[in-house]
C-alpha cells in the first residue's frame, strides 16, 4: 500500500527499531556495525519498499483491532464507490472481478437442519408416535430439547431418538400470510407516496416476517436466541484490488492501487456470536472468476474521496461479531416493471446477483477484519454469511464464503484461493393478495428462508 505522504510525518516520532527489513543484508550477530538497510526518506524504489514494509509492520503490530482498522484506512485518496443496488448492465460480472468471487448457481449442498413435515406427505410409521404430528401446534412439546439434527432429506423424516418436534409448515405459512395480509390488506393505510412503494408494504412486511420467524424458530436454533437483530444498519468495507496509473493531478504518472468502498444499508440483518460453519474447504476451486479488461469507471463507477470505513453493523466490542443473514429490499428505481418496460429482462436477475455478491463480500470481509485479518494477514478460516434479496414478492437467496482477503496487486499473484457465492434466481413467494387471502403461496421459498434461519454451527 502506498502510504507515502503520511508515513514520513510519523517517522520522526518513532525510534529506528531493529525490525527485520527485507532489504537488509544478512549481518553476523554481535556485529559492531548497525544493519545496512535502504534509506527511509529518499525517493528510490528501495526506500519506497522499505516504507511500505514499515507500514505493514505497524499494522501487524497494532495492539487492538480498532487500531488496526484505523491504520488500515488512514490514508484517504479518491476511490470507486461500489453500490450493491445498481442499474448498471452486467454489474454482477464486474463485481465478481472486483472481489475475486466465483458465482455458483443454486444453493450449496447442505443437509437441512431439521426434518420439515408437510401436511400432505403422511407416511404412517410406527416410530412416528413419539414425534409431534404436523397440525398440532408445536406448543404441545413446550420444552425444546437442544435437538439432534435429522440428517435425512426433507421429504421423508426418519424417526429420531431425540424429542425435537418436526417443523409445522402450516404454522409457518400462516405466520407469513398473516404478516403479508396485515401489511397489504388489513391495516388501513393511505396511498403510498410517489416512488415510495417499497416503504409502504414490502418493507414492513419483510421486517414483520423476519422478526416473527426468527422468534418462532429460536427454540430450534439456539444461535438465533443469542442473536442481535438490526433494523436498517450500515455495512461498510474498503479494499484495494489491481493497479492503475494516476492520469491527472499532481500525482500524475504514479502507479496506484485501485481503491473501492462499499457503503451498504441492508433492510435487516441478524448478527450472531458464533460463526456459521464452512460450506467447502478454504482452497476449493469451483469455477473461474470473470476477467474484465476495462477500467472500473466504464461500468459506470465513480470516484470520490471520503472516510475509509470498515463496519459490520456494530463496533468491534460487540460480542455478536459474526454475520448470519442479511435481508435486502430492492428499491423502486430497480423494480421489475421498469426493466421490462426498458426491454432489459435479462438484467433483472443481474440486479439480485450484484446485490448479493457485493453486500455479502462487504459484510464477510468486514467480519474478517474485525477478527484481525487483512490483505497481508489472510484469513485462516472461511467466513460464511447468507443473504436474501427481495422486492416484496420475488425472493432470491445467496450464500457467500469468504476464503481470501488478499486482493491487492502484490498479494493476489500467489493466491490460488477464490471467494465463492452461491445464489438462486428470484422466485415469487405468492401470486396475488386479494380479499383477505393470499393466492398461490409458494412453500418452497418459505422453506428456503426457514433453512437459512436455522443454519448454525455443528456443535450447537
Amino acid at each position, binding site marked *: 500500500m502506498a502510504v507515502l505522504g503520511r508515513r514520513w510525518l510519523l517517522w520522526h516520532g518513532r525510534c529506528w527499531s531493529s525490525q527485520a527489513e527485507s532489504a537488509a543484508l544478512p549481518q553476523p550477530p554481535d556485529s559492531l556495525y548497525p544493519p545496512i538497510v535502504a534509506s527511509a526518506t529518499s525517493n528510490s524504489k528501495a526506500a519506497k519498499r522499505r516504507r511500505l514494509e514499515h507500514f505493514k509492520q505497524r499494522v501487524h503490530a497494532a495492539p487492538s483491532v480498532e487500531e488496526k482498522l484505523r491504520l488500515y484506512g488512514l490514508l484517504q485518496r479518491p476511490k470507486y464507490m461500489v453500490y450493491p443496488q445498481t442499474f448498471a448492465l452486467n454489474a454482477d460480472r464486474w463485481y465478481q472481478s472486483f472481489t475475486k468471487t466465483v458465482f455458483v448457481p443454486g444453493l450449496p449442498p447442505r443437509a437441512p437442519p431439521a426434518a420439515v413435515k408437510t401436511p400432505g406427505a403422511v407416511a404412517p410409521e410406527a416410530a412416528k408416535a413419539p414425534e409431534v404430528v404436523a397440525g398440532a401446534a408445536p406448543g404441545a412439546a413446550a420444552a425444546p430439547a437442544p435437538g439432534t439434527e435429522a440428517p435425512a432429506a426433507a421429504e421423508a423424516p426418519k424417526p429420531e431418538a431425540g424429542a425435537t418436534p418436526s417443523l409445522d409448515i402450516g404454522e409457518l405459512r400462516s405466520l407469513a400470510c398473516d404478516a403479508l395480509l396485515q401489511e397489504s390488506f388489513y391495516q388501513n393505510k393511505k396511498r403510498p407516496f410517489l416512488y415510495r412503494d417499497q416503504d409502504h408494504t414490502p418493507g414492513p412486511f419483510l421486517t414483520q416476517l423476519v422478526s416473527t420467524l426468527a*422468534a418462532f424458530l429460536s427454540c430450534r436454533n439456539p444461535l438465533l436466541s443469542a442473536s442481535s437483530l438490526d*433494523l436498517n444498519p450500515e455495512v461498510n468495507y474498503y479494499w484495494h484490488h489491481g493497479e492503475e496509473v494516476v492520469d491527472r493531478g499532481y500525482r500524475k504518472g504514479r502507479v496506484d492501487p485501485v481503491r473501492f468502498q462499499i457503503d451498504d444499508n441492508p433492510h435487516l440483518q441478524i448478527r450472531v456470536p458464533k460463526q456459521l460453519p464452512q460450506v467447502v474447504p478454504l482452497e476449493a476451486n469451483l469455477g473461474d472468476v470473470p476477467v474484465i479488461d476495462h477500467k472500473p469507471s466504464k461500468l459506470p463507477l465513480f470516484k470520490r474521496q471520503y472516510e475509509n470505513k470498515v463496519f459490520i453493523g456494530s463496533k468491534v466490542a*460487540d460480542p455478536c461479531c459474526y454475520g448470519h443473514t442479511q435481508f435486502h429490499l430492492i428499491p423502486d428505481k430497480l423494480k421489475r416493471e421498469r426493466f421490462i418496460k426498458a426491454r432489459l429482462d435479462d438484467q433483472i436477475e443481474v440486479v439480485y446477483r450484484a446485490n448479493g455478491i457485493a453486500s455479502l463480500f462487504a459484510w464477510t470481509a468486514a467480519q474478517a477484519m474485525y477478527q484481525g485479518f487483512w490483505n497481508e494477514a489472510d484469513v485462516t478460516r472461511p467466513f460464511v454469511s447468507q443473504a436474501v434479496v427481495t422486492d416484496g414478492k420475488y425472493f432470491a437467496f445467496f450464500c457467500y464464503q469468504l476464503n481470501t482477503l488478499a486482493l491487492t496487486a502484490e498479494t493476489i499473484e500467489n493466491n490460488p484461493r477464490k471467494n465463492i457465492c452461491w445464489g438462486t434466481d428470484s422466485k415469487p413467494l405468492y401470486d396475488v393478495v386479494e380479499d383477505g387471502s393470499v393466492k398461490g403461496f409458494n412453500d418452497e421459498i418459505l422453506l428456503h428462508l426457514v433453512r437459512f434461519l436455522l443454519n448454525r454451527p455443528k456443535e450447537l
Partner: protein
Amino acid sequence: MAAAGPMALRRAAAKGSGSGGGLALARGVLTRAGPPRPRGPLPRTPWTTRGPPPDVLAQAVERLPVREQVELDTITYAGRQHFMPGLARPRFPPWDRGWHDPWHSPGPRYEDMPLRKDRSCFVCHQNVRMLEGVRQAQWLTKTKLVEGLPPSVQSIIDNPAHRLEDHEERVRHAVWHARLWNTTETAPKREHYCPALFEDLIHICRLMSAKYPSLAKRMLARNYRIAATWERESILFQVRGQNGILMNSMAPIPPVASKEEVLATEEHVLETFHPISPTIDLQEVIVYKELNDTGFKEGYPYSHAHTLFFLESANLRPRRFRPEQLRAKMLMFAFGNALAKARLLYGNDPKVLEQPVVVQSIGTDGQFFQFMVFQLNTTDLVSSGGIKNMVWIDSDQKLYENALCIPEVKKRVVLKPAGIYGFQPDTFKKFLALYLHGTV
C-alpha cells in the same frame, strides 16, 4: 355691495337721528320695519333646494370607519400607471384567473365543506401536549388513577419462572449496543439509539416465545391510524391519527381490576382544574367526521390491541415530550384504542361493559420508561358520575443511569471508562411482564 354700506349707514344714521315711529329712509322712500327676514334655513320648496333632504343625504353617505375613509380619500398613483413620489401606493383587487386551476386554488371554504358541523369538536392527536398532563387526560377519559402496576402484572414480575436464562446479560448487551456500538461515529444520536434500544428489547421479549408458544400470536403494526369519538359533558372529543407502534394479539388481556374495585370507582370524584378548561391544548375543528375505527379492517385475526409503544426519539430536547405530557399522551391513545375496540364489540350505545377492555402502554425516550395499564370499564362518558375507567401508571423508571461514549479523562488519567453506568434490570423485568401479560 357698495350700495348696502352707505344705505345701511344712512338707515342707521336716520335711526340714530331718532325718527319717530320707526320710520326709516331707504332710497328716498320712508319705510317701516317690516316682518323680520327669515334667518334660518329656507323652507324646502323645489325652488329653494336641490337634491335629497339632509338626513336622507347623510344616510346615503354613511360615515365609514376611519381607515376605510382614508383609503378612499388617499390619492394613489394607480391612475398614473407608474410610480410617483409623494403619492400613496395603491392596493389592487386580487386577480381572478377566470377559470379553476387545481394547482393554484385556495380550496373550498369551511362553509362549503360537506362535513362541516354546527358544533365544534376537540381533537387529541400525537402532537398535542396537554397543559395539565395526566389530570386533564383523566378528566377527558373519566379515569381513576392508581399509582404502581396492577397486582396481576406484579405477580408476573415476581415470578422467577417467567424469565429467560441470562436475560440480564442480554439486556445489558442490548443497552450497550444501542447506546455505544450502533454507529460508525463516536456516539449515536437519540434518533438512532432510541428505536435501536426498543427493537433490541422487543427482540429479547419475542425470544420468550420459545417457552410460551402462544406469544407467537402477536404482530407489531407501525404507522397505523386510530379514530375514536366520545362526548363528555356536552363537548365532543376525538382521538385521531398515527401515534406509536401497536402490538396486536389474538387473545384479549383479561380484566385487571376485580368487580368490587370497578364498582368502588363510583365514589371517586374527577379532579377539575378550574379556571383552566379541560379542552385546553386540544385542536378545535369544525369540519370532522364522527368516526370510530381501530385502524384495521374486519376479519383481522390479531384484533385485540395489546400494547402501545411510544418512542420519544427527537434529538432536540424541546421537540421531545416531557414525562408528564408523555404519560398524558399514552393515556389518551390507550383510551382511544380501548374505546374503538369497545364500540366495535358492543356497539355505539353508552353503557357499562361487563367485560372491560384492557390496553397497555409503554413510553420511553431511550433511558426513562413509563409503564401504563388502562382498563375501560364504561363507554358512558357524558356524565362525570358513575363507574369510571381505571389506569395504573408506573412512571420514570430508569433503565440505566448514564452512558458514557467517550471516557472521562482529567490530566491524562482515565477517571471513568466508556460504558453504561447504573444499570437497573428491574425496569426490563417490568417491560417483559407487560409483554407477557395476558398470555401467562
